[in-house]
């Protein structure tokens, strides 16, 4: 067995272990971003495509390589961007954001947040007290 093949097998074995151990700890919350992130990472095949497209080994190689570079670049750029877009959306509980319909009224906003997080503690609050 050639040394490089042997080394490759070690890398494959160990990276698979790492992958399983790490990814099983990703919460369901992030399963969709996980998919797009691994997708972007797998776009590393771009480096293989770059060598083929750029090393001037004839028209066939250049043509195939160029298509491959385009496809991989879409994955890398698109994958990272959309993961970022998604992760930006995930927020912990906090004073209601500016997009909420009642955001201009601080009292209402505060109440909504409090009652949502405090649960039934103040659930019985009579509605007539509502600041609206």
């Amino acid at each position: 067995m050639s040394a490089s093949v042997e080394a490759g097998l070690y890398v494959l074995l160990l990276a698979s272990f790492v992958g399983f151990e790490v990814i099983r700890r990703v919460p369901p919350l992030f399963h969709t971003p996980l998919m797009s992130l691994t997708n972007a990472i797998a776009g590393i095949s771009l480096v293989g495509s770059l060598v083929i497209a750029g090393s001037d080994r004839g028209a066939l190689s250049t043509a195939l390589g160029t298509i491959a570079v385009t496809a991989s670049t879409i994955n890398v750029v698109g994958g990272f961007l959309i993961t970022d877009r998604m992760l930006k959306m995930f927020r912990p509980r906090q004073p209601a954001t500016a997009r909420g319909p009642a955001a201009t009224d601080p009292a209402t906003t505060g109440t909504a947040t409090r009652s949502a997080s405090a649960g039934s503690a103040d659930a019985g609050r009579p509605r007539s007290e509502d600041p609206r």
Partner: protein
Amino acid sequence: MNDYVVPLCYLAASGLFIVGLKGITQPRTARRGLQAAEAGMLLAIVGTLIQKQVVTYTWLILALVIGSAIGTAMSLYIPMTAMPQRVALSHAFGALAAGLVGTAEYYNREPHLSTFTAGALVLEVLLGFLTFTGSLMAFGKLQEILPGRPQVYRGQNAVNLALLGVAVAAGVLLVLDPSRTLLFPVLAVLAAVFGVLLVIPIGGADMPTVISLLNSYAGLSGAAMGFVLDNKALIVAGALDGSSGLLLSIIMCRAMNRSFTNVLFGAFGQVTAGGPPAASEERPVRSATPEEAAMLMETARKVIIVPGYGLAVAQAQHKIRELATVLARNGAEVTFAIHPVAGRMPGHMNVLLAEADVPYDQIKDMDEINGEFTQADIALVVGANDVTNPAARTDPASPIYGMPILNVDSARTVMVVKRGMNPGFAGVENELYFQDKTLMLFGDAKAVADGLVRELEASVRA
């Protein structure tokens, strides 16, 4: 100097990719993880471009620019509800790149291929083209360009297996003697055809599992490319990608109570054997208008909202978030309960709700929330069906028997928002709808939610 810089770039990239994945295991570190992965990618690309082998940059730059433009456009304008399609498409691109690189490498090195490298190359090309066409088919079905229903015919399994057999045989012959150049196109074309045939018999709704599986094939193909090009960073990335796809498909299988073998090999058959759309005799259900439902909601102290695929179809996430805000302002404790396979992709509902600004600590997984339904005044089911079907617990004859479900039927009152009495993905009827405590709110999820918000706000104001 490049002798050191280039390999170290790749090594650092590999480490950063892992750091990136570790980041995404926690909300707090997720974005930092993403940045680490991005830095890794940048390093790897720079490392490649300064290599001596790379001599002409024209085509490279053109391809990089076009790819970046398409990638940017795709990711900025795609609606979150279309994420499943996007994932399928990106697997297609990744697999295409692997297949093409394999093809180019074969023709460049064909007489000098060692047996092992030839083997890796054949695997790369086989999985690459198979995943390419398979993912395109999945994309087509999810985007509804292609008919979503499974296309089944007699002898399908035999034909598919025979085709795969021929492709594998061609591959083996190529490995034994890589100079049989005629066999290479045969291999590539057969792989592509097999990818199409593999996905044809599978219903649109079963796509997520297939996509995840194709994801792990794409990863494997990338790892094989790493062996062919002797690039360890590719092997690492391929292994990470592959294990992610495999794990997610295992998670989906568990949550649907289907065996892993069933997905690995069952995909050859009619997986969606969900039976004919249950030609049920007309049975009475209690239905209600948004006005009536809003009256009940006014006095509720604890409401659990159960979103499902219908929420995505109706793009109702923003309206539902509004409803939750109104309910909370009204004094109710509102929680979202997410089943692991609600929607059409793992984490699908989480992204939609996050998009609508629902804080993630208001969202609970099945295991966390299932005990709480008994204390809930209202379980509001929005476009979810199978994941609430009590038959999974009680009816051994049901195709979803044994699948863990959300215990919505333990709530005081169950409200179900859906357009009609159509079954969900599994094609089975839902006993839940015929229970006394269940109120059906018929209509498009967005419209119904909108009605509920209006009624609640009106009554508060009154």
